[in-house]
Structure formats: C-alpha cells, structure tokens
C-alpha cells in the first residue's frame, strides 16, 4: 500500500533521487533494517505477553482443564456464558458494575470541572500552584495504600465516626453496610482522582482569551454571568470530549479499588465483573468460565471504545496518533 503511494509521488521529489545517487545509499529509503531492528525487542515481548494470551481466550469456549491444555480440553461452545446468566449472581454483578462505573464517570467529570472553574478564579499564582500540587498527590498513591489508610479511618471507632459522633450521627459501618459501601467507593474514587482530572480543564481554561472577560465585565456581567456565558460554553467541547472517551469505561468499575476495600459482607453491593472473574478464575480455578466472562466484557468494551473514539474523532477531531 505504502509502496504504491511512494511510487506515484517519487517523480515530484527530486531530493530523494539525489540522495539515491550518493555513494553508500542503495535504497530509496535508507535505514529500513535499523528501524525494524529497533522495534524488534518490543514487538517480540508484545507477541509473547499480549498476543499469545489472546489465543488463550479460546478456553472461554472450553471446559478448560490445566492438565489437558488448550488442545486437549473439551469444547462446550457458549455454555460458559449461558451458565453465567443462569446464575442469580449475574444480575447483581452487572447491576453493581454499571452503577459504580457510571456514577464514577459522572462524578469524575463534574467535580473536577467545578473545582477547576473555582481554582481558576484564584489570583495568587503561588497559592494556586500549591493547591494544585497537593490535590494531585492522591492520584499517585496506590489503592493498596489508600485502602490501608481508609480501613483505619473508617473503623466504627475510627476518626471519621468520632467526628460524626459530635453531630450525633452514627457510628456508621462504612465498609460493612451494603447501603453505605457503594457511596464510599464512589466518594473515595472522586477524592483520589478529582485533582488530577482538573489538569485538562485547567489547560482548557488557560486557553480562554482574557479579553472576553474584560469585555464582559465592562458590560456589567458579574462572575456568575461570566461563568455561565463564557467559561462553560468554551469548556463544552472539552467536557463532551472527556465524556465521549469515558464511554469505553462503562464496564470498568475499578478493580484495584474494590478488590482492596470490599469483603464478603458487601459483595451484594460491590461485587463487579472484574472481581468476580478474579475469584472464579484465579481462586476457584474455573479458568474457562472466568475467561468467558472476561472475554464478554472485553468484547463489549472494545466495541464501545471504537465507537467512542470514532465519535471523538468525528466531532472533536481527536486522535491519539
């Protein structure tokens, strides 16, 4: 394909012909072998650790036994998938996954937006930078660490419950109550990520022409009016872009977080596809069954990602490469 394009273009590119005549350059395109060589180690590693496991997906259609391997295990068609939907757990798991993922997506779009718009009003640059530095930090801490911290904070006699006691509330079993726990998951996720998620909004805000605000304030528009009529409309493209790209995450409820914070008492409100796949596959050794559920999730996610990126490309001219 590229070779053809090359041929049709060559005649109008005399420089290329010139370089061809230089000694030691036989090829029209120099260094091809070097480029392939540079890519080779990475490509080999990807073949082994990304592509070979994809063939392992065949076990989704098998009653996979590790002793018999992919070639010896009996084929069962879609039985693994139909079995999952027959389980009473499946409805709960799908509901939890969608609820947690969608709530996090929405909250992680809105909270950082509000925060960025407010922070943008701060005039002292040093103060602004300090606040940014502090709120970005939790993003870089792992859920293992944060679960360790939160499990201590949220104990029935922990610091949060002691603070609530002053107001006559509680004690609340934050991590052991199915009515509360999902909101702890959403809230702590927003706490961890809101700062980091402001980066893109702040960049967009920095791109707004200050003359617009000057003109508006001369016309007598206050802060609220300026925000409503200038800031938000100009951020709209960014918001829509981020929302579109988030579509691909609609089945990602956040494995690392849930895995580190949940326990059997709250499975009812927090068991999601990824945690279920882990327990069924790695812990119970139902490899074929767990792979089938994982594959189902990946296929849906893949379709959603392609859909959302093509939307983003079409309407916002966004592309990753």
């Amino acid at each position, binding site marked *: 394909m590229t*070779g053809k*394009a090359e041929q049709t273009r060559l005649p109008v590119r005399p420089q290329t012909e010139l370089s061809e005549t230089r000694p030691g350059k036989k090829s029209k*395109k120099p*260094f*091809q072998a*070097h*480029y392939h060589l*540079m890519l080779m*180690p*990475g490509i080999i590693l*990807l073949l082994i*650790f*990304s*592509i070979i496991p*994809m*063939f*392992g*997906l065949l*076990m989704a259609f098998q009653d996979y036994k*590790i002793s018999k391997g992919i070639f010896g295990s009996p084929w069962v068609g879609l039985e693994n998938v139909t079995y999952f939907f027959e389980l009473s757990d499946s409805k709960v798991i799908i509901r939890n996954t969608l609820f947690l993922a969608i709530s996090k997506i929405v909250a992680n779009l809105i909270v950082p937006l509000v*925060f960025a718009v407010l922070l943008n*009003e*701060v005039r002292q640059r040093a*103060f602004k930078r300090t606040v940014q*530095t502090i*709120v970005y*930090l939790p993003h*870089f*801490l*792992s859920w*293992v*660490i944060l*679960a*360790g*911290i939160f*499990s*201590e*904070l949220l104990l029935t*006699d*922990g*610091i949060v419950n*002691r603070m609530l006691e002053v107001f006559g509330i509680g004690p609340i079993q934050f*991590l*052991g109550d199915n009515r509360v726990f999902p909101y702890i998951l959403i809230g702590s996720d927003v706490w961890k990520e809101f700062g980091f998620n402001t*980066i*893109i909004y702040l960049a967009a805000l920095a791109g707004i022409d200050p003359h617009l605000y000057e003109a508006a304030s001369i016309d007598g528009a206050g802060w609220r009016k300026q925000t409503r009529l200038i800031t938000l409309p100009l951020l709209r493209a960014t918001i829509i872009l981020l929302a579109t790209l988030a579509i691909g995450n609609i089945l990602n409820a956040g494995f*690392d977080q849930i*895995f580190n*914070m949940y*326990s059997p008492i*709250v499975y009812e409100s927090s068991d999601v596809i990824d945690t279920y*796949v*882990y327990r069924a*596959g*790695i812990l119970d050794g139902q490899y074929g069954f*767990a*792979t089938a559920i*994982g594959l189902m999730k*990946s296929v849906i996610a893949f379709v959603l990602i392609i859909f959302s990126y093509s939307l983003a490309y079409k309407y916002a001219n966004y592309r990753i*490469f």
Partner: protein
Amino acid sequence: MVRSQTISAKIWYALLIVVMVLIALTSIAPIVHTVAVSFSHKAYAAAGAVSFWPKGFNLYAYKQIVADSKFLHSFMVSVERVLLGGAINFLMTVLMAYPLSRTSEQFGGRNAYMWFLIFTMLFSGGVIPLYILVKSLGLFDSIWALVLPSAVPVFNVILLMNFFRGIPKELNEAGSMDGAGPWYMLFRVYIPLSLPSIATVTLFSIVGHWNSFFDGMIFMRSVEHYPLQTYIQQLVVQMSISTMASDPNKYELMRQLSDQTLNAAKIVVAVVPVLVVYPFLQKYFIQGILLGSVKE
C-alpha cells in the same frame, strides 16, 4: 454602590480561598493522620485518640519494621522491580517511539506496526490466559514475571512518538547530510531534545511499578517474593478489612490483636518513595499529559 460591590467581591474571594484551603487539606488529611498514628503510642492508637498529631510520640513501630526481615525483603523486591522494570520500560519506549515517529514514506512498515500496537492496547487476553502463560513459562516466583508482561508501555510509546514528531524535520535532514544513522540520531539528538517528556513517561512507569500489587499477588506464591505493595495488601489491608467487616463478637478481639501503629508505619514506608519522586514528577507530568494532544 461601587464600593459595596467591591466589598462583597472581597468576601466572595475570601470564601473562595477558604474553600480551596479546605479542599487541599482534605486531600492530605488521611495521609497526615496515618503518619500521626505511626508515631503514636500503641494504646492511644487502639483507643482511637490520635487525630493529626502523634500522641505519646515514639518510634516503636519503625523499630519493629527495621527488625522485620520479611518487610525489608519485600521492600528490596520492590526496589529491584522498579529499577529493572523502569529500565526496560525506558528502553522499549525510546526504541519503539523513534522508528514509529518516521513518516510511512521514510519507514514502510510504520503503519502496520502502529496498528499492531493499537490493537494490543485496545484488546487483551485478560488475566487468566496471562496467568496460565506466566505459569507455563516457569516464571512464577521470579522477578521477570513482574517486569516482562508490562515491558512495553504502549501508551507511553505513543506519547513519546507524538513528541518526536514535533521535533523539526530540518534537524533530521541535517543529521542525515552529515551521515548520522538512526541510532546516532535517536541517542544523540532525539533523546537529549526530549528529556522532559522522557522523564515524564519514565517516572510514570516507575510509579506504576512501585504501586502495582496484583501481579505480585498472582505470580508470587510465597511471601518472600512479594513486592511491597503485595505484602501490604495481603498482610495489612486484608486483615484490616476483614476486621472491619467481621461480626461484632470477633470485632473486639481482632481489633485488640491488630497493631495499628505498625500497620500505619508500614503504609508510611510504602508512601515515602512516591513522595520523594513526586516533586520531579509534578514538574513534568502536566506537560506529559497534555503531550497526547500534540498534533502534527
């Protein structure tokens, strides 16, 4: 009229600053609390009497840690994976980003490789096939199981490739006039010119390696091979969470048995390295994130 407006504006502004300070405090309060607990006396911590400043200050928990060979060993496993994994990630990123930053006219295979990378980024075999692969390669309990599956950070390759494409083409032409080959161009021209971007992606992979626990949990069968995050996940977090959610009768007993100051100290030790690289990270990552939007 004008005056009252400025007064109300001033009040709003003061309120805004207060809200910003409160939000910033909320972001670090949990960490400050944990540090305070780690330096407190065991009895105060168990009674829940510690807020944001140590009570009954002592170094008991840290002395315990220094004597805990399993913990120290896990720490070293993490250091090892960060150095090895970070180095491999760096090499793979620069080696792949450079040829991919050539146009498809300069490098015929470029688009095919690109689609291959995108495909591996969008689709994966999932955790179980990888688990079985690592098992059958005999990599269980080996440090390579922690660094090889994530050896190629595809997203970083694409970020850096986009950055390389922004480097003026004239430089490249000047280079090839002087007879410089691609290896020379990459290591002597492109890498020195893109240090901030390379620092960003490398720091991201270092923090990623330091923070990951899941691979250690499924690929390492004994505690002595656990990286630090896996150690903390298995020996601190799971215990606390199950204490939390266990029935009220057991709760009191479990609560007395668990050593909160020691747990807090282990968490603090695991956070410190992130805090150490954070200023460097913070210097570059905003650029790094906005890098993705660079267009030709």
